[in-house]
């Protein structure tokens, strides 16, 4: 027998006097609103935590296969040797303390009609609303000859922090002075638009001290990139001609890799570039579970209603973070955190029959380019007619002529950003 809310209220009124003590808690459970969050990265963990902050009566289950999450942001500091991979590691104890049920399994199916999520081993979790924060899938086959096995073993992507980050750091450490590091940057859209260039900067920071005769070659699948002028000015000043950037229009797009000869082939002419260390960041799409659940469009990303982040494809399922289409917000950690709160508020409103407040969206993103030198971009967005728009006259980049004192402060603020946002996500 299923019981609706009204039946339960009737029964509840009698409960203290009449209901059997053993039976009562079960009825209570059946009536609680249930949200299942799939994916324990920035978007998913923030959504789970803020659902419980906004409405502690909601039963929140977080499904995440890994015991810990390693943030992608700040992982370039592992490559420069400024921090350990462990300093990027966050567990789910904070969420458990908030009353989130954490299930350490992989979601294998999301059924919008039956309102249930299936995990590895077949167990199912029913929901009133589901929030999916699947992150990205790396499409290794976007580069001929590349594969996940190769990325794990010899030519890391290191675009999700973890063993490949460690591998790339080790390769840099064992490279000879005078060696060449090749970084392949993907076309838009992809996770963390300034990331490949921060990576080049922090690898250069390391090489300048330890292996100053070395070179870094960025082969790019596009003609411009995030914070470009700020990066290039910093490179020139800090690293001379150590970093070379080859845009799409100058044969920059990597088409093929040969692991045996450590060669990549770029551009229409497939010009060969030999590297001592090769880091290929392949094209991306929304995480696999989003594709399996029918949440993605033909380009592989998830269209959503930006007021609620409810999928345009599947009712009752919301998508936040890198996987969703929320342009002009970039695919950044701060965006995911910001979107997850808007989504959590909308879900609380939907479940309680209330009205969601006007949503607010912000992005702040720091890139560290060298010792005492960081740059940032900020954006405040408002929802206008279903579209996100940056508030006119606000946001934008660090000024080109910022003083050394301000560049140095931005490093301290970047590290503060990391501490505060991870606390806000994981508790």
């Amino acid at each position, binding site marked *: 027998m299923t019981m609706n809310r009204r039946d*339960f*209220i009737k029964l*509840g009124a009698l*409960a*203290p006097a009449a209901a059997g*003590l053993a039976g*009562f*808690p079960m009825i*209570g459970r059946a*009536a*609680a609103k249930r949200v299942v969050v799939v994916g324990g990265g920035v978007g998913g963990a923030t959504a789970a935590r*803020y659902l419980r902050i*906004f*409405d*502690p*009566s909601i039963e929140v289950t977080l499904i995440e296969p890994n015991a810990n999450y390693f943030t992608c942001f700040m992982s370039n500091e592992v490559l420069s040797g400024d921090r350990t991979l462990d300093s990027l590691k966050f567990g789910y104890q904070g969420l458990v303390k908030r009353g989130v049920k954490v299930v350490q399994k992989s979601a294998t199916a999301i059924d919008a009609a039956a309102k249930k999520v299936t995990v590895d081993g077949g167990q199912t979790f029913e929901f009133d609303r589901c929030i999916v924060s699947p992150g990205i899938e790396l499409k290794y086959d976007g580069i001929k000859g590349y594969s996940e096995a190769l990325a794990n073993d010899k030519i890391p992507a290191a675009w999700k922090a973890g063993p490949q980050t460690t591998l790339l750091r080790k390769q840099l450490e064992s490279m000879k002075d005078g060696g060449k590091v090749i970084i392949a940057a993907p076309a838009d859209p992809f996770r963390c638009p300034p990331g490949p260039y921060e990576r080049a900067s922090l690898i250069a920071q390391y090489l300048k001290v330890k292996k100053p005769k070395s070179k870094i070659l960025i082969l790019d699948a596009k003609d411009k990139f995030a914070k470009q002028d700020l990066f290039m000015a910093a490179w020139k000043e800090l690293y001379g001609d150590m970093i070379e950037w080859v845009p799409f229009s100058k044969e920059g797009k990597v088409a093929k890799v040969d692991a045996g000869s450590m060669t990549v082939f770029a551009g229409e002419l497939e010009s060969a570039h030999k590297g001592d260390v090769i880091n290929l960041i392949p094209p991306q799409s929304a995480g696999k579970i989003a594709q399996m659940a029918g949440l993605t469009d033909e380009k592989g990303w998830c269209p959503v209603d930006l007021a609620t982040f409810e999928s345009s494809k599947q009712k009752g399922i919301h998508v936040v973070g890198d996987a969703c289409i929320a342009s002009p917000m970039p695919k950044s950690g*701060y965006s995911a955190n*910001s979107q997850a*709160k*808007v989504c959590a*508020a*909308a879900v*609380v*409103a939907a479940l*309680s029959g*209330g*009205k*969601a*407040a*006007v*949503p*607010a*969206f*912000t992005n*702040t993103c720091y890139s560290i380019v060298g010792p005492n030198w960081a740059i*940032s971009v*900020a*954006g*405040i967005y408002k929802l206008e007619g279903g579209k996100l728009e940056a*508030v006119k*006259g*606000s*946001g*934008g980049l*660090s000024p080109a002529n*910022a003083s050394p*004192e*301000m560049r140095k*402060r*931005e490093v*301290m*603020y970047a*590290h*503060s*950003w990391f*501490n*505060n*946002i991870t*606390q*806000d996500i994981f508790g």
Partner: protein
Amino acid sequence: MKHAFLGTAIVAAWAMTLGGPALAAPPDAVTMMANTCVGCHGTNGSSTGPATPTIAGMSTDTFIEAMKGYKDGSRPATVMDRIAKGYTDDEVKQMATYFSKLPFVRAQQKTDPALVKAGAALHKDHCEKCHVDNGRKDEDGSNILAGQWLPYLNYAMTDFTKGGREMEKKMKAQVEKVQAKDPKGLEALMHFYASQK
């Protein structure tokens, strides 16, 4: 007796599950706005450092004045000038009220005991009339200094003394006196305020 207690507990649990007074309303617009600040300034406005300041507990006057200064460019900034321009005066006022009601949570930070001691004496002689209760109270736009992150306190003082941030007359006079008395005086004061638990 035992049964009566259990009954009460069940009613409480039942009320929480069902709603009634315990049902949380969806967050309002100012909460949503304030929640976009906390990725940098810390959950509930208390920063975990090392430099971004805690904004919880700040008086509404201080908050509004700061945002005004960032907006019109009169206050030096790294990123807040770009962010402040994204909000109307009314939105700033709402956020000011929101954060003014939250407690300033002080985190542990390293300070130099000798500087703290010297700073304590300087505070008594030059600052405590406005920065009352060792900088704990934000009266007349004095901001809360006690337990603020040390790098941030130093940035603010650098902006006052070298960065073109305007000081009130009485503060300027006292700062000059401190500088004349002890070349490390301002640094000592910052250590003193940062050391407050």
